[in-house]
């Protein structure tokens, strides 16, 4: 995330609860250069190419300039194999700047037909 450009400093933190269909656990990472939300994009090394990950991420009070930005996400993929994953996570961008830029990356190229939509919701 960023304001005018992407902040690549070590200003991101994450906590999560995850499950793989057998095991479940919690973990965290702090002082990261991005919000590392693991397990939300299938790896075609293990997962069929027609299995798509899904994620809904809420960025709360994104334009507020008085507080750090809190993010909530639910994501995962069901692949009909024991390589499936689900996680419920929170993230933090330790900046009081309004969010004007969002960059989404993966450790490899996003597949054709992947789709991304950004919505705004407004209190009356």
């Amino acid at each position: 995330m960023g304001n005018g450009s992407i902040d690549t400093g070590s200003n991101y933190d994450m906590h999560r609860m995850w499950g793989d269909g057998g095991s479940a656990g919690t973990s965290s990472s702090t002082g990261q250069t991005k919000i590392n939300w693991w397990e939300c994009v299938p790896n075609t090394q293990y997962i069929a190419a027609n299995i798509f990950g899904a994620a809904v991420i809420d960025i709360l009070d994104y334009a507020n300039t008085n507080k750090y930005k809190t993010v909530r996400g639910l994501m995962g993929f069901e692949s009909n194999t024991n390589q499936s994953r689900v996680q419920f996570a929170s993230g933090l961008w330790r900046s009081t700047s309004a969010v004007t830029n969002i960059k989404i990356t993966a450790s490899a190229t996003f597949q054709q037909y992947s789709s991304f939509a950004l919505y705004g919701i407004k209190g009356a």
Partner: protein
Amino acid sequence: MTATYDCIAATTLGSDSASVTFSSISGAFTDLILVMNILPLSTNDNLGIKFNSTNGPYGLIQVTGGGASPASNRGSNLSSITAGAIYDSAVTTHVFHIMNYSNTTTNKTMLYRYGNSSYTIVAGVIIWRDNSAITSISIAVNGGSNLSANSTFSLYGIKAE
């Protein structure tokens, strides 16, 4: 400006009913949001949800928390989506986010979460391994019991512009 959630249909059960079906769903939206508030049944069970009246194959994976350590389970090759526990003594609230439901190129993936104040909270992912556009959604109790009167079911569409 387009409304964030456009209500496609909503129903409140006037009496105990075997199922609720949303049919002839337009492909005009990007995603669907299904919100259900289900009153207690006579027994504990799961919902059984089907798209386009098909018997799957569906798969799901979920993580649950019940006040202690989290747990996870999954199911594959299911004939209905058996996500969504419903109880004999607590109202459960369910939200399903159905992604890109009208495309005919990919299997359909959705996220869900549900919970109640007495038992558990759950978050999970579902796949319908079919490339068809979703045009109907039927909701029933997996074991065949009736859905309780005054339960509410709402289907919303959201659209990327």
